[in-house]
């Protein structure tokens, strides 16, 4: 299955919260191997997670 960026961005998000199906994982991996924009979005989603984790430890 070939993904669009729109579909890939959703799968990136879902994949941060649950284990994707084998076919979704393969499709996403293939898409990310070819798409710079979606790699950026994935890195930005992961950064936001780190930022929110750091937010709860502020002024610790």
């Amino acid at each position: 299955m070939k993904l669009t960026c729109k579909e890939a961005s959703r799968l990136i998000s879902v994949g941060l919260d649950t284990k994707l199906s084998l076919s979704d994982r393969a499709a996403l991996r293939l898409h990310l191997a070819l798409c710079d924009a979606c790699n950026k979005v994935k890195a930005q989603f992961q950064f936001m997670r780190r930022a929110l984790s750091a937010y709860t430890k502020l002024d610790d």
Partner: protein
Amino acid sequence: MTSTASPPVEIRDLEKHRRAMLKFAILQLRNETYAEDCVQEALTAAIQSADRFAGDSSVRTWLIGILKHKILDHFRKASREQAVTVSDEESSLDDFDGLFKEDGHYIEPPAPWANPEQALSQSEFFEVLERCLQALPNVTARVFTMREVMGVTTDEICTELGITANNCWVLIYRARMSLRECLEKRWFAAGHTAASS
């Protein structure tokens, strides 16, 4: 001569964490009265169990952990009294159609974020993050912060709030896309990347 070890947490020291706890609770609950109630309950619980604080984490982390449980209790109670309803607007993905061409690929590829890790050492960045979180619609914000700030699994969120897994993932996706856009506009594209605090 024997020395007595000081207790790992002094009860009188707990009060100094109230302001930070209140800030955390308001972000989750979006209601100052509920937030104050949860913080008070958390501090009371902390005082009652102060002798069990092992010192493995900082006092703040320990208190925030107790507060998270109190906030979750509040959410449980609230969703038992009134079911959470996800509006059509909040469960739709149409808002983001403008980012994509008809073939589903980006019209404008997302801009790279310069030195994002550096932002984590700047208090102004967290003020922007807070404002971006406050701009999220209510149910979206609740689901997103339960997942990302409080570490609740999506299965537990669905159970606690009585929403479907698909709704949950859509809300979290919407939150991430909105937050990404907001941080880009208010921080990364605004040239805040040089450390200033």
